[in-house]
């Protein structure tokens, strides 16, 4: 028997008004009021009384918490819940690229990325000759202990005949460690289905409550992909000097990947906003010349491709982006939503005020240790600086609002747009 079909989603007037408010700000048109929308992650569940460890494990309670906090704080869009991650999936994968609460840390710490050289300096040629084969047989075993038996596979093109597939492929599949891994992979998939099922239900329920989701997809700048995921900061920075051409060739591959995967998820989810968290391009990390040569070309190509497809790139410009403002000014006006962490506000206004909507940036230190009065003054300053064009959306500077923010400060951030932000 077929599953009963859910009735099609009919957006409420409230939902449509929120989308319009957000879209107007992005397009540098004045909405009715300054929108407030946060990329908050663990703050959302903490505010509803869950520890971070619980949020990563108890999917249903996380969904309830998400609805509670979104409605209570009355933000214009719901924060993306995919940022929480499912600890049981990490656990079953034996994922070495993260440490997480309830496993490696206390219950209220966030998960943290473990940066390693998952690809070594002398492995570029192997990777570039055959990226998929390298990732399956070399990198995955390093990234996840459960996937170590993938290292038993022969080069995958060896399996390109019925004879070798039948003899060699099946023999590897039957080897006890490999077979055990395959059984474990089925469990991982089933666990992930639970998590994704919750995410889909939650998205629909939030929409029915009148809250659009900020984003459903993320992409990375190609340099960050190589630096974060493959080579580590140290490795990637040395590659800029020792093997720049190979680094660029690898980044080319991941520029195409970033574009294609973002387009695919945007199409599947129907959500046009793509979150692009940036890491190594901030001021202080590399020179302007290095940024222009290594970092900016791939990121710009990615953002322009998304804009061409009618999507909205939302770079999270973590760190100090003041020195990079002239680059951001190259982008087409009204198409990009820049989430800022640290930046000189007046320079940002002068250099990109007519280019992109400013999103942010109530300092983390203020939200965690300051007072509601300080927060309101800061939001007022943001409105005074950016409000004239309508190109402003309010949020904290980093992590949306940090998980350990004082609730009254976050509430003050929201109240401030109602008090000072009506156009």
């Amino acid at each position, binding site marked *: 028997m077929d599953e009963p079909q859910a009735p099609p989603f009919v957006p409420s007037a409230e939902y449509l008004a929120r989308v319009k408010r957000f879209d107007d700000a992005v397009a540098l048109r004045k909405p009715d009021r300054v929108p407030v929308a946060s990329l908050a992650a663990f703050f959302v569940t903490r505010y509803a009384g869950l520890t971070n460890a619980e949020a990563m494990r108890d999917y249903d309670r996380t969904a309830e918490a998400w609805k509670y906090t979104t409605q209570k704080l009355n933000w214009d869009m719901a924060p993306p819940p995919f940022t929480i991650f499912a600890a049981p999936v990490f656990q079953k994968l034996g994922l070495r690229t993260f*440490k997480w609460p309830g496993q490696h*840390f*206390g219950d209220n*710490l*966030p998960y*943290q990325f*473990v*940066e390693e050289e998952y690809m070594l300096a002398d492995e570029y040629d192997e990777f570039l000759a055959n990226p998929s084969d390298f990732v399956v047989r070399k990198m995955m075993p390093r990234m996840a202990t459960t996937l170590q038996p993938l290292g038993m596979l022969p080069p995958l093109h060896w399996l390109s005949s019925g004879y070798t597939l039948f003899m060699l492929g099946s023999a590897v599949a039957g080897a006890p460690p490999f077979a055990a891994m395959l059984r474990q992979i089925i469990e991982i998939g089933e666990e992930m289905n639970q998590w994704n099922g919750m995410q889909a239900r939650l998205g629909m329920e939030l929409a029915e409550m009148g809250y659009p989701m900020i984003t459903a997809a993320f992409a990375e700048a190609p340099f960050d992909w190589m630096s974060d995921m493959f080579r580590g*900061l*140290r490795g990637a*920075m*040395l590659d*800029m*000097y*020792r093997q720049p051409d190979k680094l660029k060739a690898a980044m080319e591959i991941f520029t195409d990947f970033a574009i294609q995967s973002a387009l695919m998820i945007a199409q599947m989810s129907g959500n046009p906003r793509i979150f692009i968290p940036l890491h190594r391009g901030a001021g*202080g*990390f*590399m*020179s302007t010349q*290095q940024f222009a040569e290594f970092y900016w070309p791939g990121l710009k190509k990615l953002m322009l491709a998304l804009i061409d497809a009618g999507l909205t790139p939302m770079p999270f410009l*973590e*760190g100090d982006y003041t020195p990079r403002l002239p680059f951001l000014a190259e982008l087409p006006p009204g198409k990009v939503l820049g989430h800022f962490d640290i930046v000189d506000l007046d320079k940002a206004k002068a250099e990109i005020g007519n280019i992109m909507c400013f999103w942010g940036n109530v*300092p*983390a*230190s*203020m939200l*965690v*240790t*300051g007072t509601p009065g300080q927060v309101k003054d800061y939001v007022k300053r943001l409105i005074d600086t950016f409000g004239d064009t309508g190109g402003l959306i309010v949020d904290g*500077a*980093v*992590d949306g609002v*940090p*998980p*350990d*923010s004082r609730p009254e400060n976050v509430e003050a951030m929201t109240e401030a747009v109602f008090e000072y932000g009506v156009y």
Partner: protein
Amino acid sequence: MSQQLIDAIVEMREEDAQAITQQMLDAGTDPLEVLEACRQAMEIIGQRFESGDCFIPELILAGEMLGQVTEVVKPRLQEQQAGQKKLGTVVIGTVQGDIHDIAKDIVAFMLDINGFAVDDLGVDVPPARFVEAARESGAKVVALSGFLTLAYDPMKDTVSAIKAAGLHDVKVMIGGGQIDAQIQDYTGADAYGRDAMAAVNLAKQWYA
């Protein structure tokens, strides 16, 4: 030759730096002179870092070159290097619960090439370890690193633990992505710094 080695390092010519080092040693140059050239080169790189003319890639590559030179020079040093006199010891680490090491490593490196003995305790360091290390080494400066907002409370706890242990002449500096004057107040630290040279300058000031 010394000047050539300095230029090669400062200009990030890694292969030249190795070749010139070898030539100097083959020509019978005192190994200490080679190391002195390295020290001068690092000083220039530190100044360029401070003035915004070089960045993390250069610090990392300079560190690599320094390591390469030291490796060939060391066997020839025998007894003669009695050990350079250090400006003082700095205990450094990323605070409890935080496993980010990039910024901490850069600060440690800059302190090292600027003449400090650095006691690097690594990441996820509990307050008691900082106290113990400061006590053992007699360090007058402790540097706390943290990338995330979760570092605020462990930094505060570490400052309190140092005070509670009676180490009243120990100064504490803090730094990291979300650290500012407000967090200096919150934690009770003596100072905060936005970058690695700020840490060096604070340490110099506190050891003056």
